[in-house]
């Protein structure tokens, strides 16, 4: 799947999970940029992402993401 398409789908997941319709992710977005995205919600987001894309991340991968772009990279790798 293309990066832009994944980004769009992630945006929907974020809006849904964090219950915030104003979220507008970019590739460089980090937890500092998005309101309510923090350690506990991060796990909820991960679960929602895994369910949506039907993939499973390792603990290492989850803790390695520094921004959305890296998250998308992991998703793409899982889809191969």
């Amino acid at each position: 799947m293309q990066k832009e398409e994944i980004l769009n789908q992630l945006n929907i997941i974020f809006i849904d999970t964090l219950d915030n319709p104003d979220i507008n992710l970019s590739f460089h977005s980090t937890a500092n940029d998005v309101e309510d995205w923090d350690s506990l919600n991060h796990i909820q987001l991960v679960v929602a992402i895994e369910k949506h894309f039907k993939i499973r991340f390792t603990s290492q991968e989850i803790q390695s993401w520094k921004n959305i772009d890296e998250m998308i990279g992991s998703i793409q790798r899982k889809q191969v």
Partner: protein
Amino acid sequence: MLFNSIPFLLFFSIFFILYWILLPENLRIQNLLILGGSYVFYCWFSWKLGLIILSYSIIAFYFGFYIHKTPDLKLKTRILHIGVIFYVMSLAYFKYLNFFISSLNSAVQFSGHTPNLHTLNIILPLGISFFTFRILSYLFDIRNGKLEPATDLVIFLSYVAFFPSLVAGPIDKPQLLIPQLQKSRVFSYVKAADGLRQILWGLFKKIVVANNAAGVVDFAFGSNRLHGFVLIYGAFFYAIEIYADFSGYSDMALGIAKLLGFQITVNFNNPYFSQNIADFWRRWHISLTSWLTEYIFTPASIAFRDLGKAGSIMAILITFLVSGLWHGANWTFVAWGLLHGCYFIPLILMGKMNKKKSIDPAQFLPSLREAINMMATFVLVMFTLIMFKADSIKSAANTYINIFRIYPFSDFKVDIPLLIYTLSMLAIEWFHRDRNHGLDIARINNMTFRWTIYVGFVFLILFFIVGGEHKNNAFIYMKF
């Protein structure tokens, strides 16, 4: 050495002059001085301590390289685990072996047999929980690819034994301190002056508030007049004492580091102005909370992520169990930790754990809602401190029960001066809550006014150093 002692004053005065004057801005000399100074500082307590921290540091230095060099992730992790087991076992030996033996003895006794294991005469190395966690953080971060191993042994040894934060934290992350050790420090008058102010503030909290509160606490809990109001009075001042003591020490640590050109981790952010328990733990002993969040809570949450809120609750209880055990070898600490973990349950169920709470710095007073939240959180924390302070669960339980025994409080007087110092401390920190510390007053331009404040504080501190009881000089958290 204790920060609030004559030997330290002498040591640091000499150290400060050597550090900034002997070949200034020579990185090698600066770092050798930090290393040498840190070991002198630590070995002041006992030379054996120096041996322990040196050997632990050297082992970690080499482990770091092995972990980093190993390309295979599974093998990397295995080497990491060996290292972690070594350090946790050593910590367990020093801290928990006697606890384990006496608990085992109790269990054996309970089942009707005679226990025959004797507790050993093991002295707990000062600050071992703190520097062990520094080392573990280093090893975890290398395995996780967040950090390259240090190549300079002097720098690494200095990171582990950094004397401002050695005996009672903050637990500095390697990414914060090691890069600072890799660049020479340039003297900054502004930083140094700020450091001095912070030290002064820390000394005020320790000597004027904490040491005096300790007297009241000993009176309230030591006597047999165990009736309700005295115990609440004692618990209140214990909460004040432990805050003033620990945050005072942390302020001094940060101030001393600033005098040497370092920025170390902030450890407190006005925890008694918290509006719920999650907020409290983001403001109390921040470096430990960060450590536990990164290395225990987050991995546990990830592992239990399929269990939804139940998984989060399990993760928080495990985290606070570890926190309790970190504090010490007693069931009271375990109970204390679990109590705090339980306090999180309503927040997790309501999905409010991570909602950041902050009060606008421009607000003069808290709103009624905010004030109620703060007082409720304070009472919850105060309640757990009775367990924290107790020698045993039984003793804590007695105290809790006795709080409800109301007798006429005829033979007890509130220590008014102490109340004034306490309220002053809280008021100053409230009005300066958006600043780095209570005495962050550089922006007051009137020099006369500023110097009046400094002299006033120094006077007050000296008054209590000279006139006060000296048995309270050690910092509470040094025993962890």
